[in-house]
């Protein structure tokens, strides 16, 4: 097993477009790291550079103690699972899984043993004689993972492996991938644009945007302590609410929204936010921090009222969509609340959980 080290890596396409901008990332041995970000952020390019499928314009990539910049993909001791499975359609499941081992001239008995073992782990033993076209999407994805497992590589690379599956199967396969990593601990780099997938699978999440790494951290850390407005908005579903505010002091530090609503800054945050008085700021508040009013009001919780635009009953909760200052907001309330479209509804904003973003730097204060 081995870790992966990405040092000041740059990817420039055709001398112009910079897809990856001098990123640094250390992936520890057996760690499960997920690269997440919107389309075109450079996450797949980064993964493909680790795989050796894309040349590196500058920087270094190390797998274990070996610099692999100029090493062919087949000599990097990696295995990759692709979005569209990349199973050879003219070969049986067994041959697909055995292919990599045959190429490396493993003895027939060893190949058979490894394929059977991997098929057992993934519950696809009964499918070994079938051709890929006779398999469902989920089964194909399992075979693709089996092909990676049999090689027992130093690093697993996953390039959006669940994107082609329907929502239900995606959740199921997500669990299986996590279980698989717990069974066969191997250094894993996983690319997805789905932040839920990233949060549920990763030991650490790497959020990428426009070719740069915005933040690296454990899922809960990213969720509760986002470093930038981008991360704050990208991680979490529904996304964090953002409202432009004035930070002022009239005997107490307060936030004023454009339509005159005034929110007092919780005492615990006064020292942190004080230096930003008078600067253009944005208030970030997650939907779960905008809830129905409870009987007992706590310090730092402020009441706001707004006409509800859309009500989305989700079963375990109700999502309310409304506007303040012309900005769309989302609140998450208990499933037993009764709200109708157009009704003016009172909500409790828990400012103890607020985030304040400096508009100039885009960083969370």
């Amino acid at each position, binding site marked *: 097993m081995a870790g992966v080290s990405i040092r000041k890596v740059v990817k420039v396409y055709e001398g112009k477009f910079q897809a990856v901008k001098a990123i640094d990332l250390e992936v520890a041995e057996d760690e499960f790291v997920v690269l997440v970000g919107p389309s075109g952020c450079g996450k797949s390019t980064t993964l493909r550079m680790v*795989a*050796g*499928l894309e040349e590196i314009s500058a920087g270094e990539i190390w797998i274990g103690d070996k610099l692999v910049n100029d090493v*062919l*993909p*087949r000599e*990097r001791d*990696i*295995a*990759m699972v*692709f*979005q*569209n499975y*990349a199973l*050879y*359609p*003219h070969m049986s499941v067994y041959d697909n899984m055995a*292919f*990599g081992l045959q*190429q*490396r001239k493993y003895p027939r008995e060893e190949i058979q043993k490894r394929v059977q073992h991997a098929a057992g782990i993934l519950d696809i033993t009964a499918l070994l004689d079938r051709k890929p076209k006779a398999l469902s999407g989920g089964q194909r994805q399992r075979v693709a993972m089996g*092909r990676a497992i049999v*090689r027992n590589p130093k690093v697993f690379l996953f390039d959006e492996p669940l994107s082609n599956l329907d929502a239900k199967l995606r959740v199921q396969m997500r669990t299986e991938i996590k279980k698989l990593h717990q069974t066969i601990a191997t250094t894993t780099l996983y690319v997805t644009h789905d932040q839920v997938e990233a949060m549920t699978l990763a030991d650490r999440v790497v959020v990428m945007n426009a070719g740069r790494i915005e933040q690296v951290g454990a899922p809960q850390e990213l969720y509760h302590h986002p470093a930038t407005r981008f991360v704050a908005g990208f991680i979490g579903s529904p996304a964090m609410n953002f409202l432009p505010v004035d930070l002022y002091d009239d005997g107490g530090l307060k936030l004023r929204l454009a339509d005159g609503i005034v929110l007092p800054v919780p005492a615990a945050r006064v020292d942190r936010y004080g230096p930003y008085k008078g600067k253009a700021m944005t208030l970030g508040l997650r939907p779960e921090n905008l809830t129905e009013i409870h009987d007992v009001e706590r310090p730092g919780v402020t009441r706001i009222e707004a006409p509800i635009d859309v009500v989305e009953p989700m079963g375990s909760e109700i999502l309310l969509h409304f506007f303040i200052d012309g900005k769309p907001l989302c609140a998450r309330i208990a499933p037993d609340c009764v709200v109708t479209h157009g009704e003016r509804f009172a909500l409790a904003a828990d400012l103890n959980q607020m985030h304040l973003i400096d508009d100039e730097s885009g960083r969370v204060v």
Partner: protein
Amino acid sequence: MFRERSVRIAAWISCSFLALFTVVPVLWIVATAFKTAAEINAWPPTFLPSAPTWANFDEIIYHTEFPRYILNTILVSTVSTVCIMITSSIAGFVFAKYKFPFRGLIFMVLLASATIPLEAYMIPVYIMVFKLKMLNTFAALILPLTIMTFGVFFMRQVIMGIPDELLEAARIDGASEFWIYLRIILNLSKNGLMAIGVFAFTQAWANFMWPLVVVSTGDMYTTELGLAVYQRAFYTEYGPIAAGAVISIVPMLIVFVALRRHIMAGIATSGMKG
């Protein structure tokens, strides 16, 4: 509904007419091959032979060098077809899946060369063959038919349809580029390759102009040249010519019928389907 139906009827009538227009001359030749010389020259002409005879086949098979011409043509066409299948698939693979400087320009030049007719460059190629002392050899007959521009273009289109991920997965799994060509590209483009094979075989089989230029001895004649020999200056022997034409159609017919499914599938995957 009415409009759809009338369009369908019009399409059926025009297609039937075109099919008839194409098939009638072939049927006429087949019928003529079984007629006597008197019936062939009779007026008014008959379509079906009144007393079918094998005499024309007997004449061309047992009393001429025609069987030799057929063997020559089979050899030339088969070798040419295999060469074109290999060169088209390799070049198509390279143009479809590899990035290299001036790829687009080179491909454009290649395509442009397809627009130049054989007659335009026949003389320089003849001089080359002459200087290489290859006149009246199989090499002279085959060499110009080892690369087919359309084949390269066609195979490029077919291979472009194969997902890059399959090749990348194979590279990560340890396969060499030649292995990828052999086991993945050829397997996944075999329908297109068969279609090109049929085109190449037909082209080589029906080639008349080039053999006429580089072959002058009877033992190297192809069927097309052989049939031309029977068109004498003052008297044309229609019967044996028709029999020879029928015999020469058979191999092409066999190839087409055997590979029909692959041809249709190959054209469908090339992105060239109408």
